[in-house]
């Protein structure tokens, strides 16, 4: 309901029937401001409102083929090894978690009989344990029953470091204990307010013990079923060609009534985003194309009289400019951007504030991201109760100039400001990506007008995002003054998203630049708030703490949010996908259907 409304309203704004401000007001009215992490309310004792999925088909199957186009095709089909979303999406066709996230950031039971809450005794008041009950009678695709032993095994399998599963952190710091054949209890080492991580969502997919038991630990890569999944999902495995094709057929024994709707499923990989959009919107060869990161202008043109449209899902992904608090040009003990240095220019708060005033977010949205972006002053943009209302942003070259003037940065002969012999020159790096280079140009232009000389640098994405210790151009080494990229928010909870700026996570030579705090910003108040939030069981206090963290980052101008990005997909006019900005595209695949 919400999703549909949003889509119609976006269309209205697009056609000029509603202006932007009215649109925002109405969004608040339809409940956009309430995508609440259900489980947190559950801990607080608030009755849980499960958002019902409007699923219309009245019988299983009969929907013909469902043709999906993933322009980067899945390369492996074991959810515990799924490095990228593409792999998680492919695995998710066959494997299922206990629960998945729906569009509003609520938990939707899949293999679980019910979502744990204080009322049903699933949650402990001290937030140190969760009891999950499996739905009875669920069978693996080979006919064997799903039991609590499978859940315990998945925990053992993933948490074993020798397995080298990417889901390892989801399963560490906890133990899983079998209570009876269908019930397990997760015991956390520390109070864990965000308990819905293990067995939930993409990393929570469950693999069968009877097929993987022999391949735990060092032998994990030899398991024949890594490439031939046998799960519980709505579709059974037929064929897999890495990077090209995943094929499945209907699971006639599926555990949800009337589901799935389609008889076969095909996930085709390869190509590029524009032609994927074209195959769905213009020619209708495919029903759904994933992750259409294409300029809005192109999409609008394709949509004219097409066979499909673009659909948007709101999550918490943030595109931002990070500011380096250390000096990238001074080497200390063989390390640039060392914690022993301070940035000669950017340690001046006035310069950072001026920079924030020089990022014209409205233009970036208008020219580049269009319907796929929202302007924001916050680093943390969801779920709603974690979003700060205390912040604001503005674009004003005059105010920025004034601020710099007051701070003693005076224009030199060449128009570039300087103070104490230091020129106001900045190196601005990002990964090579059309929209990013355009954003760089917009920011550079505004900076020039304010007397800041900005040098642009773009690095190939495979290098920029790599963890290659030998390469100086990675985002985590941060050998530039400012840098821009996107950090996705993978779950409707801010814990992981905010934790990275804790002072203990600073990226240094010592930890091979694997620390996630790459701006190298250190703030005691922030550390205290993060530490408190991680064990706070009162949902309101916890939300306040994260809002405080966000506000601290805003006050100190640690990052300059450029755009709150939405997930964009192309979808045939008749297909009704169940999408969520808080989950992967295929996470609620069982609820997809076609309307005649």
């Amino acid at each position, binding site marked *: 309901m919400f999703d549909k409304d949003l889509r119609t309203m976006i269309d209205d704004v697009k056609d000029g029937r509603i202006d932007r401000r009215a649109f925002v007001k109405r969004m608040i009215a339809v409940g956009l401001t309430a995508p609440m992490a259900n489980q947190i309310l559950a801990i607080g004792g608030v009755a849980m409102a499960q958002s019902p999925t409007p699923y219309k088909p009245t019988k299983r199957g009969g929907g013909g*083929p469902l043709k999906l186009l993933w322009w980067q095709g899945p*390369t*492996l089909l*074991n959810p515990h090894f799924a*490095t*990228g979303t593409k792999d998680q999406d492919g695995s998710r066709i066959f494997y299922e978690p206990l629960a998945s996230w729906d569009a509003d950031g609520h938990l939707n039971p899949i293999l679980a009989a019910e979502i744990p809450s204080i009322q049903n005794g699933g949650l402990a008041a001290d937030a140190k344990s969760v009891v999950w009950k499996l739905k009875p009678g669920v069978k693996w695709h080979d006919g064997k029953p799903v039991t609590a032993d499978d859940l315990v095994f998945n925990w053992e399998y993933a948490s074993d*470091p*020798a397995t*080298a*599963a*990417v*889901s*390892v*952190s989801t399963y560490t710091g906890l133990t899983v204990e079998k209570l009876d054949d269908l019930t397990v209890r997760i015991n956390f080492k520390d109070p864990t307010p965000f308990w819905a991580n293990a067995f939930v969502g993409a*990393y929570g997919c469950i693999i069968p013990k009877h097929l993987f038991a022999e391949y735990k630990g*060092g032998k994990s*890569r030899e398991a024949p079923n*890594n*490439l031939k999944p046998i799960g519980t999902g709505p579709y059974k495995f037929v*064929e897999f*060609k*890495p*990077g*090209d*094709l995943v094929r499945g057929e209907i699971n006639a024994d599926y555990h949800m009534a009337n589901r799935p709707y389609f008889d076969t499923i095909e996930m*085709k*990989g*390869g*190509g*590029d985003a524009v*032609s994927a959009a*074209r*195959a769905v919107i*213009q*020619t209708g*060869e*495919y029903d759904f194309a994933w992750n259409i990161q294409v300029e809005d202008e192109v999409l609008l043109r394709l949509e004219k009289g097409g066979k499909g449209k673009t659909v948007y899902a709101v999550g918490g992904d943030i595109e931002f400019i990070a500011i380096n608090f250390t000096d990238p040009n001074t080497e200390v003990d063989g390390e640039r951007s060392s914690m022993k240095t301070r940035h000669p220019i950017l340690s001046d708060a006035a310069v950072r504030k001026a920079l924030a005033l020089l990022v014209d977010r409205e233009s970036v949205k208008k020219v580049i991201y269009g319907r796929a972006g929202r302007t924001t002053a916050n680093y943390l943009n969801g779920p709603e109760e974690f979003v700060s209302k205390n912040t604001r942003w503005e674009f004003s070259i005059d105010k920025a100039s004034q601020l710099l003037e007051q701070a003693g940065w005076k224009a030199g002969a060449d128009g570039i400001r300087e103070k104490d012999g230091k020129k106001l020159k900045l190196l601005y790096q990002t990964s090579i990506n059309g929209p990013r280079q355009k954003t760089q140009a917009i920011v550079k232009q505004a900076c020039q007008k304010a007397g800041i000389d900005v040098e642009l640098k773009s690095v*190939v994405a*495979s*290098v920029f*995002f*790599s*963890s*290659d210790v*030998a*390469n100086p*151009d*990675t*985002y985590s080494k941060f050998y530039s003054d400012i840098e821009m*990229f996107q*950090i996705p928010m*993978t779950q409707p909870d801010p814990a*992981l*998203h905010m*934790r*990275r700026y804790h002072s203990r996570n600073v990226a240094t030579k010592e*930890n*091979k630049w*694997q620390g*996630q705090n790459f701006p190298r910003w250190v703030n005691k108040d922030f550390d205290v708030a993060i530490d408190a939030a991680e064990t706070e069981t009162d949902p309101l206090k916890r939300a306040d703490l994260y809002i405080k963290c966000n506000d601290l980052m805003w006050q100190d101008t640690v990052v300059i949010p450029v755009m709150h990005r939405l997930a964009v997909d192309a979808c045939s006019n008749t297909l009704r996908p169940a999408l969520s900005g808080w989950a992967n595209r295929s996470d609620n695949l069982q609820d997809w259907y076609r309307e005649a």
Partner: protein
Amino acid sequence: MSQYVLRRLLIAIPSLLGISLVLFVVLALAPGDPFGELATNPNVPPEVQAALRTKFGLDDPIYIRYLRWLAAMAQGDWGFSFVSRMNVDTLILQRLPATLYVIGSAQLLALLIAIPVGVYAATRPYSIFDQVANTLAFVGFSLPTFFTGILFILIFSVKLDWLPFVYTTDIKETGILWVLEMIRQAIMPVMVLGLFQAASMTRFVRSAMLDVIRLDYVTTARAKGLGQAKVIVKHVMRNAMIPVVTLIALQMPAVFGGAIVTEQIFRIPGIGSLLISSILANDTPVIMAVTFVFACLVVLFNLIADVLYGWLDPRISFR
């Protein structure tokens, strides 16, 4: 003859070793990390990445990794893909049929166009036919395949809606319908590639023919009263084909190697698209295997071309 072939094969071994060493070192020194995607993912702790690196032996020195690779390759083990976690040979064999079918048909089409057109144009140099063929050939090889590919898609898929532009490997139909569908979906990529190849090959055939057609023995053949067709086919073409055979033989590895751009545009799951996605994902074992196999094919087809010379022109002897 057999001695010659044997000697050439033996000479090939050190050159292949050299090629593999260069490839391996370049790949090892290239920036990027197969597990780089994990770096920005806040769910994945750095230790996992480190564990994966150790598991796949990425932290060992280059020469150890090279020797390990060489030993495995000698036993027919092509390596293990980091990204797909499966054997590289399975991965490549999966991609081979589509490549052979599409690229092979394109090469065939190119030959079927280039040889008759080139020969005919050479017999009537500077005639209207020759002029038109020349102009089209110039246009043909001046237009890059990524341009013609997109143009074809816009015309035949988007505007006219005649042909699909996403290549599928699992066509539902059976029997004759399956064959028809296979042909239908291959028309555009084969045309794009085939016409491009044909354009340059036509020019080549024409000039090779022109070189031979003026020679005295051709005049002699004509003087002894042989018909035009016989002179051209038996006497001129056979001799003119030597450079053409070289060209074709050197293009044969490309039939196996795929066409990166065209495969990407039409989503053909061929070797070319495997190579490019592996490069983008820094999946070194796959890149290494594909490029090395490629090198082997180049060496092999060079040898085949040399052997063919002897058959085309018995004056060439093997020593």
